[in-house]
């Protein structure tokens, strides 16, 4: 089990990962985070593993590549979120709205719809979301969300 200082360092690593995503639109690799924090690569890699274990971020299996740092995705998805001059990938429809919620910013969202049914354009402006009557389907109940995060 991590001691308190390791635990706090892990959360600092997490904050650095999220800060990098906000600034650059993509997650940092281990070397980038290590350089930014002045830590050895191995220490940051171990922190990535522990953060993955506690669902604070999600790595590609067998790697230290960040796949998911909710609400952000490390890989292209059907959900593109534009906030000012920066664009982000969201993991799902909920996370597409989660990005402006996390940033406290307006956003323009383009979502590719299932079944090749074209795209939908949503917007967050101030306190409101604007769309055309779209709905979001959550296929799995809450107790199963971590069974398969990509499918959820």
């Amino acid at each position: 089990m991590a001691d308190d200082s390791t635990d706090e360092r892990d959360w600092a690593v997490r904050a650095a990962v999220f800060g990098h995503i906000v600034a650059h639109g993509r997650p940092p690799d281990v070397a980038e985070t290590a350089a930014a924090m002045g830590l050895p690569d191995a220490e940051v890699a171990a922190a990535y593993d522990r953060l993955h274990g506690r669902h604070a971020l999600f790595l590609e299996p067998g790697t230290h590549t960040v796949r998911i740092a909710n609400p952000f995705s490390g890989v292209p998805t059907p959900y593109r979120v534009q906030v000012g001059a920066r664009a982000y990938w969201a993991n799902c429809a909920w996370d597409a709205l989660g990005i402006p919620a996390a940033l406290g910013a307006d956003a323009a969202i383009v979502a590719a719809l299932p079944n090749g049914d074209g795209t939908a354009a949503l917007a967050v402006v101030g306190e409101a979301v604007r769309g055309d009557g779209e709905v979001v389907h959550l296929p799995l109940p809450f107790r199963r969300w971590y069974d398969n995060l990509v499918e959820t």
Partner: protein
Amino acid sequence: MLLFRSEGDVDRWCERRGRARGAVLSLDQTWALARAWYHDRLDPSFRGRSAAEAVAIFRGLGLTGPFWSLSDGDG
């Protein structure tokens, strides 16, 4: 969690894949959930959220019943 033009499109998607329909939220409901869930995600003091805290958020938004609970019998 996919975006659809309508509930009918959700039903057709589920039927084609032989999947059970889960929960369907309006955009306003999803936005309210996104704000409650993610508003503090970039705060350096964020330390995760317990399952019980998650369920409390759902309840605060009127999302109750087995789908939003930790077990089939909750809600």
